């Protein structure tokens, strides 16, 4: 089991370092627009990636999905290139940071519209159901998104249609500058339960509990029907990288530090832990460095899409 957990730990550091490197590129003016970093949700991201089966499951994510896509097995170099607007990115730079699309992997798509990815995951669940191969659709969304009609409707519909679907709420307590407790009535677990969804929850600072919650909720969705899991995560860097106004949530409750502590408690050698972290970081830096060096997406990319008849004749 240590091998698995160390792999996940390495993955977490890979994501954190990847986001750090993207932040540095953003600071240097090398990212076309604003980026919403996954720093703070690495453990949750990595656990989802670990517990899904990329061969038959499909995950959709929010505007803040770099880490989730990486964890679900999307080719990291293509992710980095897409974020940087490079040729060879997932969509050759047409989509960008909020539109990571990789149907060949376990990650289907992220989304620029809060909540819109959730019904799309229901569609992946419907496809999986029609194939009868035990696959599931997984929608990852934030506490802010949990107030969107798209998300609430889909919870009800998933129950009504018995879709093999998992709702994953990343609760970082914050939507842009709006605190979850001022924007949301009740709590999210009761909300999901009221639609008839079985509910799991965990704080990502408790690695073991979190892993179990994800594993069990994935299993339920796969075998019994729609399920819901709430994971407490944190958010670093404001809402987007460079957002001065937003509160800084990151800090005390660092899930990665807690994960490290837990590994030590499990008897994993410190040297192995450090090595895993370093390997993740090194890999991330290599990837982002390679992506930075890649050629920019060319203007000619548009020409294939802009002829009047393209919509019909492709």
């Amino acid at each position, binding site marked *: 089991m240590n091998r698995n957990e160390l792999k996940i730990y390495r993955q977490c550091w890979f994501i954190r370092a990847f986001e750090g490197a993207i932040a540095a590129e953003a600071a240097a003016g090398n990212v076309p627009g604003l980026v919403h970093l996954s720093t703070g949700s690495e453990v949750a991201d990595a656990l989802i990636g670990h517990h899904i089966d990329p061969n038959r499951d*499909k995950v*959709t994510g929010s505007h803040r999905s770099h880490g989730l896509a990486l964890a679900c097995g999307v080719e990291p170099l293509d992710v980095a290139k897409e974020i940087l607007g490079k040729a060879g990115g*997932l*969509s*050759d730079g*047409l*989509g960008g940071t909020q*539109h990571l*699309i990789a*149907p*060949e992997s376990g990650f*289907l*798509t992220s*989304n*620029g*519209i809060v909540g*819109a990815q*959730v*019904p*799309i*995951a*229901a*569609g*992946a*669940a*419907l*496809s*999986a*159901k*029609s*194939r009868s191969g035990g696959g599931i*659709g997984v929608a990852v969304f934030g506490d802010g998104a949990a107030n969107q*009609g*798209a998300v609430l*409707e*889909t919870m*009800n*519909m998933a129950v*009504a*249609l018995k879709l093999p679907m998992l709702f994953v709420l990343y609760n970082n307590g914050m939507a842009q500058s709006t605190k979850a407790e001022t924007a949301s009535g009740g709590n999210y677990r009761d909300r999901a339960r009221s639609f008839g969804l079985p509910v799991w929850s965990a704080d990502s600072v408790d690695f073991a509990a979190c892993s179990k919650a994800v594993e069990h909720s994935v299993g339920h969705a796969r075998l019994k029907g729609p399920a819901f899991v709430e994971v407490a995560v944190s958010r670093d860097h404001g809402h987007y990288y460079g957002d001065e106004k937003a509160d800084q949530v990151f800090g005390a409750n660092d899930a990665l530090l807690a994960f490290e502590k837990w590994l030590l408690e499990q008897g994993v050698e410190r040297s192995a832990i450090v090595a895993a972290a370093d390997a993740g970081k090194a890999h991330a830096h290599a990837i982002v460095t390679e992506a930075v060096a890649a050629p920019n997406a060319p203007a000619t*990319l548009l020409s*294939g*899409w802009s002829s*009047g*008849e393209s*919509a*019909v004749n*492709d």
Partner: protein
Amino acid sequence: MTEQMMTFSGALNAVLHQAMRQDGAVVCIGEDIAQNGGVFGVTHGLCDAFGSDRVIDTPISETAFVGMAVGAAMTGLKPMVELMFCDFTGVCFDQILNQAAKARFLSNGKLKLPLVIRTTMGAGDGSGAMHSQSLHGLFASIPGLIVVCPSSPADAAGLLKSSLASDDPVIFLENKQLYELEGLVDAALPPVPLGSAKLAKDGADVTIVATSAMVHEALAAATRLESAGVSAAVLDPRTVKPLDEASILEHVRGTGRLLVVDEGAPFAGLADAVISSVVRGSFPSLKAAPQKLCPPDTPVPYAPAPEACWLPGSDAIVEAVVLMMED
């Protein structure tokens, strides 16, 4: 080729039966479409034939089920969604505007999106302002969507067949006033290509471009104009987006006169798009200013007299053409 008389709704129903029989990836999604066969009867019998796993009754949650259809189309299914009225696209518009329309582009072609949203359009039955709109022009202004407006049973069948075969998302608008219309349909239900106009009636003096129910108003007007010595052609684009601009331009080059009759928006709708296309593409051959006949710039009124007055009709078409001929 054997032909048979079919209603507009019957022809659509036949295509859906055929498509579901031939392709296990086709699924139907919507409100009251399974047990109830759809509020206009178009999905009649599908649930009995193909089961409730493929003909899916949904809650009144258009965003959720249109979004589900988008996701399903991304992952191997070919969903046909029925939205009772195009007016209801308001409650699921993000999934149309941002998700369905943009998915192929945003993936640089990696995603296919074989999604058909069938819905209704059209005033004339006292349904009021939220059950009578004709939003084809609005959809057509969104890059990434195909927009279809058939006017006959055979076209309805053939265009639906092509729509179901398309990898781009299609908004398929059925005029409520046409469901009972009968016409000959080839028993094999041959496809009609998307993006190709049909000359419903030829004529030498003026080209009338009309869609959906307006085709029939235009044809009635053309017959009356004939007896007044004016030879009017009626050209039906059938696919509003992509518009068969080449056929329209070619015909107007012959007549030199264009009248667009459209039940959609009088400002920045299909009519303006056609006029703009023609004037940019064949300015020198125009003998008179192109004109349009659209409803007034208001929602659809409920009471019969205002509603009838709101809708363009053959009288107004005759009048407009006669006026143009004086130019």
